[in-house]
């Protein structure tokens, strides 16, 4: 990859700035953005409230009137970014975790698996093997707490979103659309194709690390039986 350089810094109001690196989804840029965000976050600047990596850039949310800001906060935020870039980003392996997610792909939890398999011209078992056999990477967290957009889906399983979203998708549902997969953290409405369900809590505010996923994580899905699912759901 060419040297990572921001092509724009756009104010997100007067308390945040969006530093953009790409206006299209570029996986290398995405990964670099995540490492950069971790690095900026690691500086623990007292006036910075949040560092949020997205698909092609990151937002820095700040308190513009904090006593430790000298001059204007937006320039200070951009300075922090350029200093990190100058210093060089950490190696991928120093930051990426691998998260293993148990998934029950049985019919009870996978209302769209048969249709997805038919569209992809494979058997449901083959569809499961394709999903569970791939390594995914969290491209961004958004939409709801812990809701991770993961890239790495086999092109063979690339199916569009459902024409009509379901009003309620059960929490823990594992779903696919286009080239991505998601795990629904809460029972919310959604239009992705549901092919399984995990017994894990995707977001638990009482847990030390509330979110199961972080941007940049590697993710693998491991098939489990219905009995195992029920056991793990406690």
């Amino acid at each position: 990859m060419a040297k990572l350089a921001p092509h724009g810094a756009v104010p997100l109001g007067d308390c945040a700035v969006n530093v953009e690196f790409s206006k299209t989804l570029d996986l290398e840029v995405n990964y670099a953005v995540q490492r950069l965000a971790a690095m900026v976050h690691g500086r623990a600047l007292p006036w910075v409230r949040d560092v949020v990596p997205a698909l092609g850039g990151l937002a820095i949310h700040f308190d513009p009137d904090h006593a430790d800001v000298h001059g204007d906060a937006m320039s200070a935020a951009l300075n922090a970014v350029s200093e990190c870039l100058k210093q060089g980003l950490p190696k991928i392996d120093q930051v990426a975790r691998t998260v293993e997610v148990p998934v029950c792909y049985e019919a009870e939890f996978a209302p769209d698996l048969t249709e997805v398999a038919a569209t992809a011209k494979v058997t449901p078992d083959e569809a499961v093997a394709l999903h569970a056999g791939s390594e995914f990477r969290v491209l961004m967290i958004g939409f709801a707490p812990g809701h991770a957009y993961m890239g790495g889906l086999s092109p063979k399983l690339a199916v569009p979103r459902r024409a009509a979203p379901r009003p309620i998708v059960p929490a823990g549902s594992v779903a696919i659309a286009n080239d991505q997969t998601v795990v629904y953290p809460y029972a919310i409405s959604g239009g992705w194709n549901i092919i399984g369900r995990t017994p894990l809590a995707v977001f638990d505010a009482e847990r030390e690390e509330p979110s199961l996923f972080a941007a940049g994580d590697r993710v693998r899905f491991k098939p489990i039986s219905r009995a195992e699912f029920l056991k793990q759901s406690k």
Partner: protein
Amino acid sequence: MTIRVLRPGLLMTVQDLGRHGHQHVGLCPGGAMDPISLTLANALVGNEPGAAALEITVLGPDLEFTRDTLIALVGAEFESDIPLNRPVLVAAGSHVSISRAARGARGYLACAGGIAVPEVLGSRSTYIPGAFGGLEGRVLKRADVLPLAENAEQLSRERYEQLKNKRATSVRWSVPPFTVPDREPIVLHAIDGEHFADFDANMQRVFYDTVWRVTPDSNRMGYRLGGPALARAKTDEILSGPTALGSVQVPANGVPIALMADHQTTGGYPRIAEIASADVPRLAQIAPGGTVHFARCGLDMAAELRNDMRNRLQTVLRGIAWEYGK
């Protein structure tokens, strides 16, 4: 010591100043929709600005106080049997009835010592979509019992004792609720959003010329603004990017949405504008059916508005401290 909910009103939740530092995992800061009024309510009962209070929306509750409690209701002009915007000592066993907001949309009822629900991720704020914080992560309902600080009765009496100019159960003065509108439409100052230039000159003009009406499906996540549909000239897909409190998004149906306290942290809709942070609490005081319009501004102006709001708040806080003999 507790408060019992006899009638919950329209939408009452426990809120404080929110939880920062979790937006990277998709959790917005949340907290009071109008943090200025919350800060004032807390100051009036001698609390720190971030103590947890009741956020009351449009139609207020009936509450029963089990012990003597020093309270203050600040924000929207609610019809109520307690005087607004000042400290009030309510006696053990008494009922407080808060009905319709004649002006404004949100009131903050603070109690000496704060509402003592447990902290979740560093805050007592109710986050309704995630069902955590506040009381069981939900909107308050009839027969709920809200815990107060153990020493709340003692705190209430001591603090009321400190006040200089008081009558039997309240004082002769009040604070100005300066986020509540005198008249509508209110002016919201807005900085051009990242995708402002994607809208043609005519649409840009429409955005700034229209008096927008807050629609009934507006909530703590976002305010939908009814008016002419805004069409973006460009049709290419926008890569999902970060959003902020006060971002104004325009989805495909052309109805702008202003992101409020419980907003999503990222979004794929074009952002036409970003509301100046000083004006967001004023927007929070607009009830459904209320009207707003936008005035284009730059970052300098936004900073000036912020300083102005902060100075006015500091002046009032100093006045309250003086009344407490500090």
